[in-house]
């Protein structure tokens, strides 16, 4: 009797919810509702047939515009449309007024504004908006009026970023407010925040999608609808940011953000849900270097042990990872790879966005370590959640990525748009006083430092890089073809250079004439390529085939390396080793040290010119692992190194007519990394000891 009474109440409540229209709302604003953003466009004839040998297509999948909450505060007013124009080779303006233009156009581009508060700051700044009536938005009113987008506004902007915004935007409406109830019923927590206008947010997202649709030209230029899921661990502020891109014109009605959930596993659940509705997407983690070791943890977000389900879910949604970008490179760290002479490359060792800047633990923050952790987890029978491919991207916040050392504007607009504010050139007396004044006025840490008698800005931008690019091996320049390349991890990353690398493995590679015209066709037929698994075949030793070509406008190639990682069967100890496999200038690898001799390439620091007579146009070889053990699971990825060239900070100093800052690297070696090939041994019969 009692039970059926409760049942009646439950049923009638559900009925009431339906009847009063809440249910419809739940459907409407659910983050799983799919919108077709496609626009009427003239048909374009794509008469060029797909190339079965695949072509390398260069792009950037990490670009912010004015719709990102931080970019707008950095003075950025560039729209997604401006960003796409830039990628196609047009000139757009930096917030500080100078021209930004690519050396040569890119093949694909994705605007990925922060989903969190997308479009809101511009709305606060617009004094005709509803939001701008709120008291706390006052400091943001008209912040990007033309006369205020200057280096002098830096203190004000830094203060907005670090105090005003973080305090104001988390205030919810009181419990009786209809918006709070709406939030609860529609499962859309952001609506409950006093600082949030859902209509503004949705229209910003629709504009991002519309820009992507307008610029996507099959066969010529590809765009993706996308955004950044900007989450972090709640303790220690470990950065867990990822970019999400969608495979078609169809995308959800709104981005899933950190307000919905901080837990990346919930993001994957949402992505799985969209996939069930026919919208495929992928998430790409970035800046693992600034995650304090939490990007590639050996436990889940909630501290549970990693399971096979977790590993499968992660790999289903995150096939590629950004290894390099403006905030440093995450290949490996000198502390993790003491035997790798090239490990100390563009290391950014601070947690992303930490104030004051806080050290980021290397363990668990670098991709090579992640690959090893993946093998270890698999060795323990818990699946491999870290079997991802590699891409690079810029993370620019000005709409325009700076990929060249001598054509560089860093990324945060007004904050680092000049050589002095990046810390590469000594500060003038005026600027020193200005920075001291700001520190006092806005209670910020002192941001100047003395180095050998000269005063520089001390803001961490000196650890940032003119990097990087994502390269997909695709049949043609279309959304589908490039997206499929990411899914099968047939990708490589570069530090901004347009070099290219092919990588194959198989058991019959040595029968292929590497100097024949159909070498690539044969390699595809007889082996596997980057991103794939190579399964054991009767315990044979596999052969690897590498072919790298220089950037026609960059420096020649110096060497090609294969980096191997494995876990010892008996002990579960992770190991790694770097092999040089091809050297420039006719030099040969020393079989004992596995190193090429020095090719003697030099850089003249006085004018940044480089040796013109050393280095290779292309490097090509087949290689056999001298330490191969057919019973051990291992990964192999390629690293291609250019001859040294001037770093951006040296170019800055050269252009300003001053000496380069003595504690920074004067030169760097631009490079590319392929996605790994994993060798999978035959599963061994376990000896079971009956108890």
């Amino acid at each position, binding site marked *: 009797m009692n039970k059926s009474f409760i049942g009646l109440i439950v049923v009638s409540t559900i009925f009431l919810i339906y009847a*009063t229209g809440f249910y419809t709302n739940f459907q409407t604003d659910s983050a799983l509702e799919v919108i077709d953003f496609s626009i009427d466009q*003239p048909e374009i004839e794509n008469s*060029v047939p797909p190339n079965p040998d695949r072509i390398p297509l260069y792009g950037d999948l990490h670009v912010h515009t004015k719709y990102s909450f931080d970019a707008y505060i950095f003075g950025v007013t560039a729209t997604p449309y401006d960003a796409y124009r830039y990628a196609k080779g047009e000139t757009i303006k930096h917030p500080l007024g100078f021209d930004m233009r690519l050396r040569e156009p890119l093949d694909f581009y994705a605007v990925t504004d922060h989903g969190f508060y997308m479009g809101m700051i511009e709305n606060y700044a617009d004094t*005709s908006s509803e939001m701008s009536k709120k008291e706390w938005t006052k400091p943001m009113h008209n912040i990007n009026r033309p006369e205020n987008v200057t280096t002098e506004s830096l203190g004000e902007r830094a203060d907005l970023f670090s105090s005003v915004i973080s305090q104001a935007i988390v205030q919810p409406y009181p419990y009786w407010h209809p918006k709070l109830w709406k939030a609860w019923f529609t499962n859309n927590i952001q609506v409950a925040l006093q600082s949030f206008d859902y209509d503004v947010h949705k229209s910003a997202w629709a504009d991002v999608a519309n820009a992507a649709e307008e610029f996507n030209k099959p066969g010529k230029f590809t765009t993706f609808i996308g955004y950044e899921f900007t989450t972090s661990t709640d303790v220690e502020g470990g950065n867990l940011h990822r970019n999400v891109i969608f495979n078609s014109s169809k995308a959800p009605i709104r981005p899933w953000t950190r307000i919905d959930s901080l837990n990346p596993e919930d993001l994957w659940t949402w992505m799985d849900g969209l996939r069930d509705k026919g919208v495929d997407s992928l998430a790409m983690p970035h800046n693992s270097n600034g995650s304090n070791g939490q990007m590639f943890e050996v436990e889940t977000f909630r501290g549970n042990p990693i399971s096979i389900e977790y590993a499968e879910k992660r790999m289903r949604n995150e096939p590629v990872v950004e290894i390099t970008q403006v905030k440093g490179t995450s290949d490996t760290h000198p502390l993790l790879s003491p035997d790798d002479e090239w490990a100390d490359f563009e290391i950014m060792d601070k947690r992303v966005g930490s104030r004051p800047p806080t050290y980021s633990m290397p363990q668990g923050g670098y991709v090579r370590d992640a690959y090893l952790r993946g093998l270890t987890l698999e060795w323990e029978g818990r699946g491999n959640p870290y079997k991802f491919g590699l891409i690079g991207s810029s993370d620019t916040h000005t709409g325009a990525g700076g990929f060249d050392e001598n054509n560089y504007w860093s990324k945060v607009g007004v904050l680092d748009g000049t050589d002095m504010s990046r810390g590469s050139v000594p500060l003038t007396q005026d600027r020193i006083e200005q920075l001291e004044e700001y520190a006092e006025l806005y209670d910020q840490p002192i941001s100047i430092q003395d180095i050998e008698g000269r005063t520089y800005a001390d803001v961490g931008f000196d650890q940032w890089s003119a990097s990087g690019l994502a390269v997909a091996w695709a049949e043609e320049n279309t959304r589908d073809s490039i997206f499929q390349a990411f899914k099968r991890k047939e990708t490589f990353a570069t530090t901004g250079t347009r070099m290219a690398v092919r990588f194959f493995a198989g058991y019959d590679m040595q029968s292929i004439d590497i100097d024949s015209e159909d070498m690539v066709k044969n390699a595809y037929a007889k082996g596997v390529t980057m991103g794939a698994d190579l399964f054991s075949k009767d315990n044979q030793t596999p052969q690897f085939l590498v*072919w790298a070509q220089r950037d026609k406008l960059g420096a020649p190639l110096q060497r090609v390396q294969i980096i191997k990682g494995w876990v010892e069967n008996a002990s579960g100890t992770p190991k790694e080793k770097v092999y040089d496999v091809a050297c420039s200038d006719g030099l040969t690898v020393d079989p004992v040290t596995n190193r090429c001799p020095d090719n003697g390439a030099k850089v003249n620091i006085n004018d940044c010119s480089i040796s013109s007579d050393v280095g*290779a146009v292309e490097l090509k070889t087949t290689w056999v692992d001298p330490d191969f053990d057919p019973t051990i699971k291992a990964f192999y990825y390629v690293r291609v190194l250019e001859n040294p060239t001037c770093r951006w900070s040296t170019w800055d100093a050269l252009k300003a007519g001053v000496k380069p800052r003595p504690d920074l690297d004067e030169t760097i070696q631009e490079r590319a990394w392929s996605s790994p090939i994993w060798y999978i041994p035959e599963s061994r019969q376990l000896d079971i000891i009956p108890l």
Partner: protein
Amino acid sequence: MNLRIVVFFAIGLIIFILDIGFNSEQDSKDIYISDQELTSLLSAWKSQVGRPPSDEEIVSIINNFVQEEILYREALLLELDQEDRIIKRRLAQKITFLKQETIPDDPSQEELENFFELNKDNYFVPATYSFSHHYFSKESNAKEIAAKAFNDYKTNGTEIIGDPFFLGKNFYQKSANEIKKNFGELFFSTIENLSLNDWSGPHESVFGQHIILLKEIKNGFSPPLEKVLLKVQQDYLSQAQDKAIDEYINEIRSQYRVIINPDYKF
């Protein structure tokens, strides 16, 4: 005759007095909320919240509206709208939208044709080139080897065997930009000047030497209007909107005089 004038003025006076009597809204303290206004207030509320407002909420919606109206009118009386930059900007924005909206949505065929003729360059489909090449890598003594191989081919018909090129041997319908991207500027300026179906070389690029056979040039062309109609329509409308504003401002501008203190120090 005179009577007519008197009657005319009398009627005019009556209309004038009536007008004052009926249109004294400026001083009137009545706030009239029309049915339409109410409907729009309530439906706006409903669309934001997701349900119709309760009686209490209706009261507060109306109170808010009334309060805003009172403050607005009092502000007008105090002439607070004068010399306010934000109000100026908002009004300027409104008139801009108004002028943009006066453009007809459907331009006539003739207008489109004229526009298309004037802007043909924007719809130009660039030339493409199809070619094959034998590549000799810079690593070797490329120039000599290439020259010899080509010579052997010409004299004895010996097959040319070079090195494989990273991006392959045959290139089909590539635009100038794609060729520059894959081979560099120098190589493209060579291609441009080759004669068709005639092996030639060796030609230099960043990567080494090339013996090239240009197979086909598809000249660039302006597509007929039908092929690009949608794009032309979009471009026409967006240009027409910009033009409407410019014309409007130019027209009015001549009536204004701008005075700036010539001694002001910038």
